[in-house]
């Protein structure tokens, strides 16, 4: 039986995309395709273009050459179907909002000038429950720890009811103790939605994704089963100590408590 048409449209398709900030090239001639329900990690050195690639997929930046299609349409048209968790929230710590307020912002696109409906609240609560933070709903957002905030922002992205989830460094502020739990949650999500995770932590992501995209001016794609020391060396270039450390860890395939 042929699969439905909607499954054949790739979640994200990049064709010969190049982007530069002024004179500085960030991404050169990048082509790839991500199928629906694929789980992909973007790794690579700082300044290699990971965040730029995410912003291109979100349509916040426009490539100088090449085309990007998200769910078969332009990034701007597909925006509402993408849930995005930014790495840094340019957020004013004295801004008085509750956790529920923040998660409800995932629903803000559908309310017009009006109020959030009971349905919006239900979806927000469900997103929080999925990340095991529903108990925090009435707390002030600025009273949370970094790791809790991270989860709230993922819940906010989920409250968009996305088909694609873009997570920029989801483990950046998570303490090693809860990382494993976090990992289980993300793995669970990957069964339902297409997940793109930016991470510096290859050991973490390689267990939950099927492919790793190494972003460093260009994009090289590696199935996780093929990750070898050589490839990892290539990804990170000169940063050998960090690569060895990571590599060690992923070979043993255990907890990441000893990663820097």
């Amino acid at each position, binding site marked *: 039986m042929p699969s439905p048409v909607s499954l054949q449209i790739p979640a994200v398709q990049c064709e010969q995309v190049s982007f530069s900030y002024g004179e500085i090239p960030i991404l050169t001639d990048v082509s790839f395709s991500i199928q629906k329900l694929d789980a992909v990690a973007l790794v690579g050195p700082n300044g290699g273009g990971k965040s730029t690639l995410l912003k291109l997929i*979100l349509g*916040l930046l426009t490539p100088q050459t090449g085309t990007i299609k998200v769910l078969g349409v332009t990034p701007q048209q597909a*925006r*509402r179907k*993408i849930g*995005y968790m*930014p790495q840094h*929230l*340019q*957020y*004013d710590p*004295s*801004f*008085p*909002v*509750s956790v529920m*307020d*923040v998660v*409800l*912002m*995932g629903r*803000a*696109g559908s*309310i017009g*000038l*009006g*109020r*959030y409906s009971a349905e919006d609240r239900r979806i927000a609560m469900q997103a929080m429950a999925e990340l095991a933070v529903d108990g925090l709903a009435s707390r*002030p957002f600025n009273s949370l720890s970094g790791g809790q905030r991270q989860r709230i922002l993922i819940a*906010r992205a989920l409250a*968009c009811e996305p088909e694609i989830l873009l997570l920029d460094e989801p483990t950046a502020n998570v303490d090693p103790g809860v990382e494993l739990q976090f990992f289980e949650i993300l793995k669970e999500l990957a069964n339902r939605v297409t997940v793109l995770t930016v991470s510096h932590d290859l050991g973490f992501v390689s267990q939950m994704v099927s492919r790793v995209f190494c972003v460093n001016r260009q994009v090289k794609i590696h199935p996780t089963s093929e990750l070898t020391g050589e490839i990892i060396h290539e990804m990170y270039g000169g940063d050998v100590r960090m690569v060895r450390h990571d590599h060690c860890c992923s070979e043993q395939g255990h907890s990441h408590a000893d990663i820097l």
Partner: protein
Amino acid sequence: MLTYFNALTDPNMVFLRYALFAGLLAAPAFGIIGTYVVARRMTYLAGAIAHCVLGGIGAALYCQDRYELVWLTPMLGAIVAAIGAALLIGLISLRSRERVDSVIGAIWVLGMATGIIFIAKTPGYIDPMSYLFGNILMITGRDLLTIAVLDVIVIGLGLLSYNRMIAVCFDEEFARLRGIRTELYSLLLLCLTALTIVLMVRVVGIVMVIALFTLPAATASHFSTRIWQMMLFATLLGMISVAGGLSLSYGLDLPSGPTIVMLAGFFYLTVIIGKGLKNRLR
């Protein structure tokens, strides 16, 4: 204090009653829009809009006299100038590649200079001081009606856009990704700011009107964990500042605008100093 209440009902002191009404009417608008302005950190933009209002007032006074346009009241000039400045500043800060703060600074002083030149060229003696620092003697019954109408518009739009405005103020990029036209909301907020400024120009003047935006909202932010609480507390603080300031200025024979602003500033300083002491003692 008793004499102040007597004065409020004295038919010869109708201006005092008007000033109090104007202040109490304006307080909710200042509480709501001031909260957005403080949370969004755009006090500086509000300052620029306020100073441009003088340009509109001056132009209106000049045209009224020179071309006998009776309908062109200073209030109308103020509204047009405030909205114009808000749109100009909004478009520049959204679109320009120029350094935004330099451009805003330029609009700030040019608006003010335009007003002073027009006032100087208008025959008869007009005291710019009363526009700069407020003069409750100038409030008319018609002004009060205009204030009430603007008030309804500002409060209505401010509350209707509440959820989306918070989303835009909290995380503009995310709001844009949800399909919200964030530029439109930024312009709307600037226009609401402009109208709110006009509400109180008569009472406290264009130089000090910013104080009524920022001080009650900033004071309220120390007691609030939600935006609506901040709006509510800022409104109450605004009302107390206006009523208390007018009463003090009457009793002590002080200019009313500065007294209102001083009282609002006193609340703010008390709260931040009190909070600092509390943290130190802990």
